[in-house]
């Protein structure tokens, strides 16, 4: 009887111990752990194992020290430690993404759920932390446009936080891409705001502004659209504000159409505000695609900025002359077309004399865009930033039925 009682007690104790072990090894399944709410701390706990990380990081740190002592170039050392860390987390990553089969080139990527995306974001953060712990600060960040201006001791932490926060927001954005509901849009805004708060804890006010201007998608778009164009800081900021305002009232569906939720009157107010900030002349230069291309070309070719002034004078004069020809009641259509075509040839010749033959050959697509309508018997007008063709007849239209 006594033996039985002892056995029972031991077995019950073992039940308890094993239960704890099983719960530790089998938390809830991944698919049940996430929802559209922020579970960041929980995900982080899931993917961190301090004990394991500690021993691994010691090894990676020792290894980096030894490789540096061996005289291995820093870039190779960093690549090696990075590969070791990647290897260490490979099974975890594969478990998150699950097996991928061989597929046809036109078969779509297997769908990645929000849960998987968030798990990968947390995993990347852990890897980045392991890299920093093992290798110390990355000296190459001093040359980076985004982080180089920060104090050396801040760069790596800021980079890690910014990349983490961006990836986190991007995971949610990707999940609701295309058609976010109002609630989802509000949720993403709150994540953006949280991101700013986290960065504000690491950066001073001016540093945060600079990081914003260097890393925000709108700022990057403004810079890309003006590649090679000599912009001033105020011009950049005016265009940035304009784009930001339009974006906040626009839903973009990639590959399809753009729905702008501004009335024509509202859009005019926004446009006028930009014209006021840039001045009419610069507005025409910076908001016209061809003009921006020319401006970058002139700058790249080492021509003086006065070349652009001359270009715009030629364009405006040609537009005015073309209207004069088109509206001249004393000439017939055939004569008008011949005169417009001759005007186009003159305009091209004037461009070539300002730009030189080599640069003018590069400018041919813009000349075609601006003066091509003259060759086709139309006048051109300059309206704000746009060049528009204008038919030589001014008879008001009547309506006829479209037939197949």
């Amino acid at each position, binding site marked *: 009887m006594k033996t039985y009682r002892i056995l029972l007690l031991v077995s019950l104790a073992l039940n308890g111990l094993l239960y704890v072990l099983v719960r530790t090894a089998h938390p809830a399944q991944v698919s049940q752990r996430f929802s559209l709410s922020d579970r960041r701390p929980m995900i982080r706990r899931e993917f961190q194992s301090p004990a394991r990380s500690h021993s691994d990081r010691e090894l990676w740190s020792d290894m980096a020290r*030894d490789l540096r002592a061996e005289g291995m170039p820093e870039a190779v050392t960093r690549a090696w430690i990075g590969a070791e860390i990647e290897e260490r987390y490979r099974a975890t990553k594969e478990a998150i993404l699950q097996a991928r089969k061989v597929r046809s080139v036109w078969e779509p990527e297997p769908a990645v759920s929000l849960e998987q995306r968030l798990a990968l974001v947390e995993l990347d953060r852990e890897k980045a932390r392991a890299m920093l712990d093992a290798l110390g600060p990355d000296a190459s960040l001093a040359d980076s446009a985004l982080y180089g201006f920060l104090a050396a001791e801040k760069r790596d932490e800021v980079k890690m936080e910014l990349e983490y926060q961006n990836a986190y927001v991007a995971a949610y954005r990707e999940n609701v891409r295309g058609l976010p509901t109002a609630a989802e849009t509000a949720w993403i805004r709150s994540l953006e705001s949280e991101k700013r708060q986290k960065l504000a804890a690491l950066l001073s006010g001016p540093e945060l502004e600079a990081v914003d201007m260097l890393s925000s998608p709108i700022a990057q778009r403004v810079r890309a659209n003006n590649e090679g164009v000599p912009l001033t800081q105020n011009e950049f900021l005016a265009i940035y504000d304009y784009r930001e305002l339009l974006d906040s009232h626009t839903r973009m569906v990639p590959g399809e*159409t753009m729905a702008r939720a501004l009335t024509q009157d509202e859009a005019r107010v926004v446009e006028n505000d930009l014209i006021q900030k840039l001045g009419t002349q610069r507005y025409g230069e910076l908001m016209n695609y061809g003009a921006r291309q020319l401006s970058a070309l002139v700058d790249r070719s080492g021509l003086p900025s006065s070349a652009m002034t001359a270009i715009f004078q030629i364009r405006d004069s040609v537009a005015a002359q073309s209207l004069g020809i088109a509206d001249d009641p004393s000439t017939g259509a055939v004569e008008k077309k011949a005169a417009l075509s001759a005007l186009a040839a003159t305009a091209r010749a004037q461009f070539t004399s300002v730009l030189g033959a080599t640069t003018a050959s590069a400018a041919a697509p813009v000349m075609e865009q601006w003066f091509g309508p003259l060759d086709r018997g139309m006048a051109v007008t300059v309206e704000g930033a746009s060049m528009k063709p204008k038919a030589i007849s001014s008879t008001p239209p009547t309506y006829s039925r479209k037939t197949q």
Partner: protein
Amino acid sequence: MTTAQIPSRPSVPLLGFLFLAGSLLLNLWFGWQLGPGKAGRSELTEAAKVPPPLHAVLDQGRKGSPGTALTGMYVSDLHQLLANLRMKGISESVIRTVMGAAIDERFRAQENALLPRPVNDPWWQSHFGTMGVEAARELLALRREKSQLREDLLGPDPEAEVWENEQGIPPEKRMQAASITADYDAVIKLLRPTADRLLTAEEKDLVEALRQEAAAELMHLLDPMELAAFQEKSSEYTHRLQQELGGFAASDAEKSALSKYAGQSADSNGREDLQRAANEELQSALGEARYREFDFNRRLQFRNLADVVQRAGLPPERGMAVYDIWRRVDAESQRIRDNPNGGMEQQLSEMKSLAINARSQIQASLGPEVASAYLAHAESWLSKVEAGNVVSSSSPNSLSSMPVWFPRTR
């Protein structure tokens, strides 16, 4: 012992032994749960706990003085470095990364000297710099030499993703073809860093010459079948179709019809009549029901709608119902246009009613929240119909509209 004793005094040993047996069984079950190969978190972490060879290498080092295991590991001779890494039993994927970085390091100074000089821009400006024609040629030669060295040292990556279409190409050739494309593309990208950049005649000629040279190298390397498979992978149309197919799970027979359709669409070069003919042929191959699913899936607006319907917990048929409304509007607007008896006012009024009805049907199908998200996009075609346009979309991601009545100058 009498039978009367049993009910009055429960058998403690019997119940106790049953309890003990249950407890032991429970222990066995717990033990089984903790065993190797069980699913769940253990699968994520246990696999990661298997020490890679690095740990063995370093542990060996720690037994002696620090650094013993890696002493003599780094040598500038790349063949010797590779031999050292392999001798230490480092995993192949780590070796590939280390060797890749060492090869890059070998060429870094020469490459940097040829790259366009970075302009120290303030944050509000951006210049990618300009690359001269001679520098571009030298850089290409350097990159080809580097690729050759990587191919000689490491050979094809056994873990590289292989597409079904290119499984017939030997791995060495796949690696070389990928290098040719990457090397030429990288130099072309430096010559034309953005699509907006205007190129001089000399730069344009060079870009064209580089494209032709890359094509010639690929033709020399691959036989016609291999070349077709490789080009199919890198074709712009393939990438588009890949996106368009979205959630449409094609059977093998359907795959063959889709493959033919992909070729026809690529050859149509944006001509609406050819695209329409390809659509009709595919429709007859897939059958009406499957074509409807395919057409739903390949249109971004409906793929996005399917996503938001799923996130909102609505049945998937609601998305399909909106697709049917869209098709009805398409067909009905054409019927209105083609009605020989309709006058301008009557036709414009019918078009307006068509759009208004479609809008309210969409709202009824999707509910206010999802409908609001969808209509923010769908207004791009609904508002056109409301204003008297026939909207047609024979290619999946572009929309053309034509007014029923249009201005005519005398």
